[in-house]
């Protein structure tokens, strides 16, 4: 292998082809899955790994899932040792063997060429159900993993090309929805798509060339990442982010603390001072928290850096077990992915003083809901994951306003709201308002992204509503004189005139038909002194009604022409 000389041109061909393979796997997932969270919201990631589980390339539709596959791949290889065979298919979701979230269930497929294990293809997607006490997995009352989901440590569902029916049945006997079997088959299909393409590539260039060039690719990518890190001055930087309410103890509040150490070409994120784990489901896993760290950093560097092992090599992440970002066995952790926003806040705040041109102000934190009930028109059960209401604005940065209606930072515009007319076909609800919310963005020389107000009338009797999220106690923060965004809320106006305000992690039952659901996903934080914002932009924004005349005057010192 060492005899292969690196062909710099072939290197580019490998890089481009790896990318095209994971893209193709992603499209296969989008088109063959049935659960809306997969085919509409694209809550999945597809990836290629070398024989040792090092990341070759990934297509990350939802960045929070992005960095949870390679560690598991390495774990699986170690676990099965020399009992990995061509034609195996391995499932995994277990958060205590490096999974990120119970409902994110992965498929790994070893790729053999000329009898040797040379690579892995993998897909991880958010499954609509994976057992546990509550359909869909969001159980605010859970304190242990078994109340949340079926644990799947690495398990072969197919061995040497043969389906293990007994294993398959054991798993799906513990899952509520048939659709999940189908969607797991779709994950397996996408792995096969990737395997087929990779084998074509190996047949063309041979294993020695592939082995040598992937290492060269890691090197090249590592250098790009190191060059980006080298732009940050050496030193130690600290920041904090807040988490409100663990789902069980009203008034509870937790702090994520990060100490970032930059030394030349390497960067270290140390979360040792972070608060201890909660006695609820508001806890992270190591991989979900580390993914949050990496995706936040990636938004501050050159977006063209390829996503492979070389990219993560200069990054060290320390999260002690027993903290809210890395709960100890057997704590409940379903909410863990949603600790990304406060984690990102801590990192942005820490780095703002030394890389003011790269950080953003705070993003609107996620507050989401899920309604279920019986659709009176069909007498069938419907489930609506409330994508419509949950997408607030992003934080502004130097020179660029925040992005309106983008949603949480861990998706960064990768999750879409429903089409309004499809929403009315697929749920019994009727949409009343879904528009950008005036004055929701944090003021600044560059303003935050605007939030969104969503109002609909609930059309089913005895409706159940689950909420999960944050952002209703503390708004997205501003930077360098920029103002903060607004607060999130969800309110239910019952037909009898009563108003119910669910907690940010809650389960409400018996919501009557005709109730008006009212949600605000507010705006992101602003950046820089609002007095310096372009008057021309302000004139347009006032005319367009995204900033009111009053706010323009009071926050920006802007007088509309003819209004003074």
């Amino acid at each position, binding site marked *: 292998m060492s005899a292969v000389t690196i062909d710099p041109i072939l290197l580019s061909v490998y890089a481009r082809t790896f990318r*095209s393979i994971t893209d193709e796997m992603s499209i296969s997932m989008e088109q063959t899955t049935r659960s*809306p969270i997969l085919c509409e919201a694209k809550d999945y990631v597809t990836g290629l790994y070398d024989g040792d589980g090092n990341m070759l390339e990934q297509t990350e539709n939802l960045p929070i899932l992005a960095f949870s596959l390679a560690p598991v791949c390495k774990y699986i290889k170690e676990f099965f040792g020399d009992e990995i065979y061509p034609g195996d298919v391995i499932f995994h979701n277990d958060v205590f063997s490096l999974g990120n979230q119970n409902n994110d269930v992965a498929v790994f497929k070893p790729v053999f060429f000329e009898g040797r294990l040379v690579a892995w293809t993998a897909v991880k997607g958010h499954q609509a159900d994976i057992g546990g006490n509550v359909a869909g997995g969001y159980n605010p009352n859970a304190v242990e993993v078994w109340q949340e989901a079926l644990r799947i440590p690495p398990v072969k569902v197919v061995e040497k090309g043969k389906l293990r029916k007994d294993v398959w049945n054991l798993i799906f006997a513990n899952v509520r929805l048939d659709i999940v079997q189908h969607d797991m088959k779709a994950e397996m299909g996408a792995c096969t798509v990737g395997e087929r393409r990779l084998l074509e590539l190996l047949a063309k260039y041979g294993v020695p060339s592939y082995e040598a060039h992937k290492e060269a690719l890691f090197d090249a990518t590592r250098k790009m990442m190191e060059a980006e890190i080298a732009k940050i001055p050496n030193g130690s930087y600290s920041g904090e982010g807040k988490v409100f309410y663990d789902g069980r103890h009203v008034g509870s509040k937790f702090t994520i603390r990060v100490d970032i150490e930059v030394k030349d070409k390497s960067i270290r994120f140390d979360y040792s001072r972070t608060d201890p784990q909660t006695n609820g489901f508001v806890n992270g896993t190591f991989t979900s928290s580390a993914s949050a760290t990496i995706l936040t950093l990636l938004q501050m560097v050159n977006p*063209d850096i390829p996503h492979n092992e070389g990219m993560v090599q200069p990054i060290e992440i320390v999260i002690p077990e027993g903290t809210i970002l890395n709960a100890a066995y057997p704590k409940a952790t379903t909410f863990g992915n949603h600790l990304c926003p406060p984690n990102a806040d801590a990192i942005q705040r820490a780095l703002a003083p030394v890389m003011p041109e790269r950080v953003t102000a705070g993003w609107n934190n996620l507050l989401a809901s899920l309604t279920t009930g019986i659709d009176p028109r069909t007498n069938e059960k419907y489930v609506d994951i409330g994508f419509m209401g949950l997408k607030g604005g992003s934080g502004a940065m130097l020179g660029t306003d925040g992005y309106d209606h983008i949603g949480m930072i861990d998706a960064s515009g990768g999750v879409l709201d429903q089409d309004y007319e499809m929403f009315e076909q697929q749920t019994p609800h009727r949409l009343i308002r879904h528009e950008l919310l005036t004055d929701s963005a944090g003021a600044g020389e560059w303003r935050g992204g605007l939030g969104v107000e969503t109002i609909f009338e609930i059309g089913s009797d005895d409706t159940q509503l689950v909420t999960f999220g944050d952002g209703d106690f503390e708004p997205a923060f501003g930077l360098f004189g920029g103002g903060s965004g607004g607060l999130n809320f969800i309110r239910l106006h019952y037909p009898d005139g009563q108003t119910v305000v669910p907690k940010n992690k809650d389960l409400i039952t018996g919501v009557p038909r005709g109730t008006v659901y009212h949600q605000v996903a507010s705006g992101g934080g602003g950046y820089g002194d609002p007095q310096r914002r372009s008057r021309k932009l302000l004139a347009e924004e006032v005319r367009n009604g995204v900033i009111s005349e009053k706010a323009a005057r009071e926050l920006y010192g802007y007088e509309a022409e003819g209004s003074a």
Partner: protein
Amino acid sequence: MTLKIGIDVGGTFTDFVVTRDGAEPAIFKSLSTPADPSIAVVNGLADIAASMDPPLSLEAFAPLIDTIVHGTTVTTNATLTGNGAKCGLLTTEGVRDALEMRRGVREEQYNNRYTNVKPLVPRYLRAGIPGRLDRDGNEVAALDVEEVARALELFRREGVEAVSICFMNSFANPAHEQAAAELVRRELPDAYLSVSTDLLPSIRFYERVSTTALNSYVGPKLNHYLDQLVGRLEGIGFDGLLLIMQSNGGVISPQLAREKAALTLLSGPAGGPGAGLFYVRTHGQDRCIITDMGGTSFEASVAVGTPMIKNDGEIARHKIALPMLDIHTIGAGGGSIGWLDEGGLLRMGPQSAGADPGPACYGKGGKLPATTDANVVLGYLDPEFFAGGKMKLDVAAARAAIEEHIATPMGLTVEEAAAGMYRVACNNMAQGVREVTIKRGFDPREFPFIPAGGAGPIHSCLICDELEIPLQIVPRESSVLCAFGMLMSELKHDFVRTFVSRLDALDWPKLAQIIGEMASEGARQLTEERIPDARRRFDVKLDCRYIKQYHEVSFVVPGNLIDAHDSAGIASAFHAEHNRLYGYSLEQEGTPVEVINVRVQAIGVTDKPVAREEPWAGDDAAHALKGRRAVYIPETKTFRDVPVYDGHRMGHGNRIDGPAMIEQETTAIFVSASYDCVVDALGSFALFRKGREDLVKSCIKDKKEALA
């Protein structure tokens, strides 16, 4: 004698193809005139007139033209450059931001500097009007006509040129939109008007409002352009039939194009895919991959019996849900610039040197190395014979650019660097072809490959190597394939209605009524276009999905299945198409299928240029040999002296072994060491993988036997 001219306006050149019964198609090019593209049209027609035997004046020639088919980029460019009309939108109260929110997508997730696209209608000109229909089209609240009037008063004050109307659930009942449209016609009679249910009465609000707003955005521009074009053509005495190319690969009358301007958003490249089929049929094939390599972009599409269509297109990040050809575009062309990323990897494009200053070898001041510069260094382009010798290429400038920006930093020779650029460019294009083949469920190896654009056939051997495609067809007209394809296009009118129902519980009389209504609307348009009954065809498609899926599959349904109320037959056609696209169906599981939309395409068959068989000229190509020169052979990574043939002198049956170069005035073809070439009956160059004579039997065996 029927004289037809296809005209394709490009960024640099306006292409013309002239066909007459019994004569070989003739190719002309004139310099484009972006400020008023119709000037280049008339200039080109003057050139064509002067080339007639005997030469004619423009005024004497114009009345002889029977048909002009015209592809325009006026609407495309207005959208890409954000230079459309000032528009107002009447929409439902509470959802006026749908157009701007775009369902909350940010296409570049890791790029915080990536901003949202500017909305086609600014917020203060988007009026939310009270009045509401439920999802079945029943009125929940009456339309507030006073609010409409107030909005129109604002539009008038603001000098709005075009008005769009799109209300929630109007696909189920157009009454509110029609009432509002009446008011617009009365109050703002000069405004260009687009009504969503006239354009696209199908479900999905964002798609519909975006499509409607696009129509208004480009409508006034297209009308202005057609005024200029029609005026100039009338001025020179043309009184034949003028047809406009649409994005769906069909043509329409200028009058319809004026009303539904969004139909022309992909007018320019839409001629190519249909033309491809013309050339492969002579080899007994009914499918092909069509690619077109220009200066900045590379376009790929697939035809299987007919060019593939998609209903969920996008232009400049705006959704357009009108049926359009499924053409995939990537930033790879002759002007694509080579560069090294921060990790030191060689990349090509998407940045392009364009036509001005162009690649370094153009000698117009370009200093950055482009694909064309690599092609010059590798010997694929003869610097003395570029564009038939009309433009000399500066080899030294090409070498200098490659040396400075690629070779020296990578520690390579200039030749090695150029070979790398060539290879990376070909790899990019091969990935582009994968987008329309493998990702749509097609195996590219089963498709003949048609490389169009002047530089396309220089790269096609390596692209086909990568994709293991054994047969390439390079038409004589490959440098103007889109213009030629326009002459092959039918009149096509698309209609759609949303009709949500389970397939096994269809209301058949209602379905028949919906189809009948769309067909008679199509018939009315064909009547206006003077198409007799015998030349009309109506194709029905259904958009279906498995219950609870989110994405529909659109497939052709034979009329007899509908007449026989054969839902099982329709279901199995759906299962088959789903299986082809996604590798599985849920037929075994018995998952119910639901219909979402019903589509009708009304087709008026036009006169086509008659395929003309070239006489058999024997297999020996020696008479066309014009010299030898050293070119780069990718298979061995060396330069080698290869024969250079004059393509114009090659005839049906002439055969060449690769590696070799074939040159025509507007095209250079590189036959690599892995391919041989034979000229087919239409005069196209058929490049087949060595040893695969079976693919080109019609040009080899049968003829040999006939002669024996």
